[in-house]
């Protein structure tokens, strides 16, 4: 009878032993096991994303020639517009360089843009993150800013061999030195608590008291460039509401983030370029 009881308790005993063993395993071993698990999982996810890309490719192949011709025309228009913008950009760069030389300003820090496909989106009330299909194999580093056509996506939180985890700006763990468009005073932006499937929002602090916004008259919140991580002028979202803080020194408020953040398929990582050593 007692032997039978022991047999029934055997799985629980085993589980307890495994737990006990896990507790006494050295931290380094645990870390290796975790990283190994992620690296083992990464090829599966990367393969899945390649398959999704292939599916997308074949779904596009089914489009009619008329659609392709129209898309081609749109592309030509876009390219033309971008050409003009590029030219303007080049002129502005030249002017900036000239002014910088006149004022003996140090050259601004540069970034290398690294486009990466999104492998997985992971949204919950606890974290908001993406897994992208590039890692240390492309020289990505922890903390590097990630952007897309609509503005800021977030920062890289973990870098693995072939993948990286990007913490989105809707996540409470991301804080950015922002400012309002046309205003240089720094504002602290931080991701908010965003339940799943709800529109992503963030929070701002240290908003100057003379800033007035409303949902019908929002103002664009951009990166200030003062923090040293993100270049200036990138869109974060729209400041839709502010209210005075109790100390009367500032206002705090809410930021509406771009809905596309939850539907990204490709992002760009800005990898800080290392400054070449000065020539002797």
């Amino acid at each position, binding site marked *: 009878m007692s032997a039978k009881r022991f047999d029934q308790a055997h799985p629980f005993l085993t589980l307890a032993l495994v737990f006990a063993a896990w507790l006494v395993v050295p931290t380094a071993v645990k870390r290796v096991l975790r990283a190994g698990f992620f690296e083992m999982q990464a090829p599966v996810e990367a393969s899945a994303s390649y398959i999704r890309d292939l599916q997308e490719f074949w779904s596009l192949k089914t489009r009619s020639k008329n659609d392709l011709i129209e898309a081609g025309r749109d592309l030509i228009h876009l390219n033309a517009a971008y050409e003009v913008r590029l030219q303007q950009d080049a002129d502005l760069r030249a002017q900036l360089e000239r002014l910088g030389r006149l004022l003996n300003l140090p050259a601004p820090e540069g970034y290398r843009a690294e486009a990466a496909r999104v492998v997985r989106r992971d949204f919950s009330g606890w974290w908001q993150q993406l897994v992208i299909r590039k890692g240390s194999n492309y020289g990505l580093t922890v903390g590097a800013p990630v952007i897309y056509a609509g503005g800021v996506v977030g920062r890289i939180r973990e870098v693995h061999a072939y993948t990286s985890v990007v913490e989105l700006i809707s996540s409470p763990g991301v804080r950015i030195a922002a400012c309002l468009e046309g205003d240089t005073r720094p504002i*602290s932006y931080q991701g908010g608590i965003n339940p799943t499937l709800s529109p992503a929002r963030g929070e701002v602090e240290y908003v100057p008291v003379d800033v007035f916004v409303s949902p019908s008259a929002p103002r664009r919140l951009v990166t200030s460039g003062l923090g040293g991580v993100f270049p200036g002028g990138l869109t974060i979202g729209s400041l839709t509401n502010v209210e005075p803080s109790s100390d009367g020194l500032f206002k705090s408020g809410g930021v509406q983030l771009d809905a596309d953040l939850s539907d990204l398929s490709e992002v760009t990582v800005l990898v800080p370029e290392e400054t070449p050593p000065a020539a002797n």
Partner: protein
Amino acid sequence: MANQGSERVGGLVETHKGYNPRILFFYFFIAAILLTLGGGLAYRQLFSNDRYHEAEKKQNQRRILVPGPRGIIFDRTGRVLVGNRPRFAVTLYLDQLRQDFRAEYIKIRKAYREADDKNLPTIDQMQRIARFTVVRRYLDQVNQVLGRHEELDSDELNKHFRQQLLLPYILLDDLKAEEYARLIERLPVNSPLQVYTSSIRSYPLGSIAAHTLGYVTGNDDIEPSDNFPGADLTTFKMKGTVGREGIESKFDADLQGETGGAIYRVDPSGYRVNPPLSKRQPVHGHDLHTSLDAELQIVAEKAIVETELNGAAVALDIRTGEVLVLASKPDYNLEDFIPRLNHDKAKQINDQGAWLNRAVSGIYPPGSTFKIVTSSAGLLAGLDADKFSVDCTGSIMVGARRFTCENGHGIHGVISLTEAIAESCDSFFYQFGLATGAEKISATADRFHLDRPTGIDLPYETKSMLIPDAAWKKSRRDEAWFPGDTANMSIGQGFIGVTPLQMACFAASFARGETVTKPYLLHDPERPAQHTEPIGLTPAQHAAIVQGMVGCVDHGTAKILTTIPSMRIPGLTLAGKTGTAQVHGKDGNLNIAWFICFAPVENPKIAVAVVLEGNVGEETGGGRNAGPVAQAILKKWQDTQSRPPAPVITIPGK
């Protein structure tokens, strides 16, 4: 028997029959113990429950108080005179570093043991080293982000750890906006390093009206409101401020924000256990709208500075008594008090005599401006303004002493009251005063409240003003009152001492034909016009004196204001009186230059009093030096009258 015998033998076997009386003692003993224990338990659980609960609370809970920002001080048009601005600091919450301290301590202890060091530090010393090492690591992190090379003060760190563990430890203070921007972007959100914002005073218009506004100093003992919970708990207080001078001091209770804070549970080592049990946000203090006009104040201060003399200027709204200007020079730079005044600056202020608010605490003989009081007293005493005249030959004998006429060329010839006021003829007023009598002049001055403080809403208004009379001289100097004393008093010399604010109030009162003007420093758009006891002069008598004051500006001792084209104020009629009194300074005699006036004559709205302290050996005069200061104030006042009223804008902290 056999049975009995067997029972005796069997008596050694335990039996339950009957009682052993000896065991009863133990029953009672046990019962008493149980009762004692039960009673004690009941006493503690039922009757002492609250006491133990309180003791437990005191042991396990800590209260942190955070001061509320002070209210904003505006001028009468809504310009911010004193605001608040944020002060950013990077702080470290030491109570979140318990694990780090412990790990570092173990590492240090191990290192010492492995090194087999004979001079092994004590546990306390190793803990201090561990704390220093951990905190310095964080400071290095901040230095790296900001590109600084700041060092850590070990003693300060340990003092903070011992006494204020739950308060944030300030690593770097007064960060620039760019620096705090770098920190909020580069520091992890959950780092023990955080950017902390406190509020300090700012002066958007610079250091104007420094004496009037006053300054604040640090206050380590902020007090919460009565209904703030946890009064009996161990409390940690963030540094607040307290007003030390001027409006900041007088209205400190209104300006002080409501203290906020939180109550935390702590573990046996005093480390915080989040989240707080209760929390209350600090609340902004009440804003104050002063009666000062910033534009006039700036002009007045600039005009005094341009004379290169020490002095004061006061301007009042005649109707309501609201103070438009209250300037005193030299003064101090209010920014120097943030965060605290250093020794060198304090010495500089001391050497310059800049602590004194000359407008309300400077005592000066009023000189010839007092002749308006003498004139009023004489006319009230029955002297006839039209008939009383004097032949000024430059001096008169009063008793055995010759009194000279110091104004003009010294010989005014036959002169009436109106013209004597305009020309400030001393000979006339010696005789006019003697004819009036010292008692009546003193009594009239008292009616104008020149013998007492005005009661303005400022701390430290002097009470040393003096209108002398025979009784005073007897009691204070044990001397009789002589006619020479009356002659001296008639021209505002001798023992008389008044403040510029008193003379401005007097000018305002006289302009209204009344005796008292109560000055107010807070602006109230609904403030009613002041009506006090009339002087008692007939309209003709009042007009005779006013005519003399107009003549003073038109062709008399203050004619500089009309004869020099740049000094004229077109469209504004002015009634004024100059005064130049002589005082004995420590380095010799010097002149005190006065000018009091009101305008417009036909409908008086503003009264001004200016005093300047001359330098030894220099000829400083009321018309020449003090008059232009009043002219600058009146000119700006006239400009502001022609403008639409400025909207009242209240942007706290802007």
